[in-house]
C-alpha cells in the first residue's frame, strides 16, 4: 500500500478547504461588519520521517478556522442611523435563537418604532431590551458618540429615548462565527458592558478583508493544490505501470 498518495490527497483537500475559505472572504469584501476568517494547517505527525515512527503515514489537515477581529475601514455615509464601533466592541442583537453579537451597524427603525439591524433583528440596550423610538419621523433622531439616542421634538427640546449597548468580550476567541455577520458567545465567554464606547455615527465599518492578501493566498493555495494533483497523478501513472508489469503481449 503506497501511503504517499494519501499524503498528497490530504494536502490537496486541506488546500481546497482553504480556497473555499478565501472565496467566502472575497465574496464578503464589501459586507458591512464582516470579519475575515483564517485557517491554519497542521501535520498529523509533526516532523516524523516517513520511514520511522510515522510508518509512512504523513498527513496534513486543517488545524483551526478562526476569525480575525481587526478593525475594517470606516466608510462615511452621513446616515444618522449608521453606526461604526471604534476599536473593540459589539452590538448585541436578539435573533430567533437567542442573543447574538455583531459589528454590523446599519440600523433602521421598523414600523413599530423598534431599532433594528439591517438584517432585521432588534438592537438591544444594556438591559437586553429592544429600543423603541417614539414618533415616526426618523429625521429627528440623533445618536451621540456613546450610543445615547435622542429625538428632537418640534419645539426644539431633546428627549433621550434609549442607549445602544456596546459589549466587549473577555476573550474574542469565545465568539463563535455564525452566518450573517453574527457571533454567538460560547460557554465560558464573558461579556463586559462598555459604558462609554466610541461610536462613529454616520459611518459604517466595512469588511476587514484585504483583497491583496486574499489574492496572494489564493495563488499560493491554487498552485500548491496543483502540485499535489501532480503527485497524485504520478502515483496513478505508477499504478498503471505496475498493472502493465507481468501482462503478456
Amino acid at each position: 500500500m503506497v501511503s504517499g498518495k494519501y499524503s498528497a490527497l490530504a494536502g490537496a483537500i486541506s488546500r481546497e478547504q482553504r480556497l473555499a475559505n478565501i472565496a467566502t472572504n472575497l465574496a464578503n469584501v464589501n459586507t458591512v461588519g464582516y470579519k475575515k476568517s483564517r485557517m491554519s494547517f497542521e501535520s498529523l505527525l509533526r516532523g516524523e520521517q516517513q520511514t520511522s515512527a510515522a510508518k509512512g503515514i504523513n498527513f496534513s489537515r486543517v488545524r483551526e478556522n478562526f476569525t480575525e477581529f481587526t478593525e475594517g475601514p470606516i466608510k462615511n455615509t452621513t446616515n444618522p442611523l449608521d453606526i461604526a464601533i471604534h476599536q473593540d466592541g459589539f452590538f448585541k442583537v436578539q435573533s430567533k435563537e437567542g442573543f447574538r453579537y455583531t459589528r454590523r451597524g446599519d440600523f433602521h427603525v421598523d414600523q413599530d418604532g423598534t431599532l433594528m439591524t439591517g438584517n432585521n433583528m432588534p438592537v438591544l440596550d444594556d438591559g437586553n431590551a429592544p429600543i423603541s423610538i417614539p414618533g415616526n419621523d426618523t429625521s429627528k433622531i440623533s445618536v451621540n458618540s456613546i450610543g445615547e439616542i435622542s429625538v428632537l421634538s418640534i419645539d426644539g427640546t431633546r428627549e433621550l429615548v434609549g442607549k445602544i449597548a456596546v459589549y466587549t468580550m473577555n476573550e474574542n476567541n469565545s465568539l463563535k462565527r455564525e452566518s450573517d455577520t453574527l457571533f454567538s458567545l460560547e460557554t465560558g465567554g464573558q461579556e463586559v458592558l462598555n459604558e462609554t464606547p466610541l461610536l462613529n455615527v454616520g459611518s459604517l465599518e466595512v469588511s476587514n478583508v484585504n483583497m491583496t492578501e486574499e489574492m496572494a493566498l489564493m495563488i499560493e493555495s491554487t498552485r500548491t493544490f496543483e502540485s499535489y494533483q501532480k503527485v497524485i497523478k504520478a502515483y496513478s501513472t505508477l499504478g498503471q505501470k505496475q498493472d502493465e508489469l507481468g501482462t503478456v503481449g
Partner: protein
Amino acid sequence: MIRSLWTGTTGMNAQQLNLDVIANNLANVSTTGFKKSRADFQDLMYQILRVPGSQTSADTESPSGIQVGLGVRPAAVQKLFTQGDLIQTGNELDVAIEGAGFYQVELPNGETAYTRAGAFKRDGDGRMTTSDGYPISPGITIPDGSRQITISETGIVSALIGDETTSTEIGNIETVAFTNDGGLLAVGKNLFRDTEASGTAQTGTPGDDGYGLLLQTFLEGSNVNIVEEMASMITTQRAYEINSKTIQTSDEMMQTTNQMV
C-alpha cells in the same frame, strides 16, 4: 513557498496605506488648521542564508553573505506641523496662530484637546467655542451687546460693550506648546490629544519665546501641497503596479514548476 509572492503582497499593502494617507491629505486640502500626514516605511526582517563573514575556507570568508529581504512594513504615519497658508476672512472671531502653538479646547467629557483651527463662534451663552461648540479654555464669555471684538496678537480679547467708547478687556487666549508636536494624537474634528510621545502641554502667552503670535481676521489653511501630493500619488500607483507584477511573476513561476511533470 516562493518568498516573492508574500514580499509582493507587503509591497502592495504598503502602497495601499500610502494612498490612504495621500487621499486623506487631499480630502482635507481646504480644512482649516489641518496638518498633512506622511507615511514612512521600513524594510522587514531578512532571512540570512549565509552570514556575512562566515568561513568559506580555512583562510577566506564570505564578503557579503546571502541575506534575502522579506518585504516592507509601515513604520510610522507622521503628522507634519509646518505652517499652513494664512487666509484673510475679515471675520472678527477668526484667529490664526502664526508660528508654534495650539488653542486649548474643553471636550464634553471635561478633558482638554488642542487645535490650530481658529474659526471661533459664539454659542447661546456667549462663550467662545469651536465649530463643534466646544468652549476654548480658559473660557472667554463675550457679554451681550458687545461690538467690535478685538483680539491682540498676544491674545488679549477686548470688546466695545453697549454704547461705550472705550473697549473693555473680556479675557485672554492662552496657547500651549509641546516638546514634540509629531507625537500628538489626531482624534478628528481638527483636534489633537496629548500623549506620552508629545509630552505635556506647556501653557504660554502668544508672542513669548516659542509661542507664535495671533492674527485676528485670518484663518490658517491646511498645509497640504497639492502638487507634492499628486507626485506622491503617481509614484504610489506605479509602485503598487510593479508589486502586483511581482505577485503575477511568482504565480507564473509556480505555474511553470507545476507544468514540469
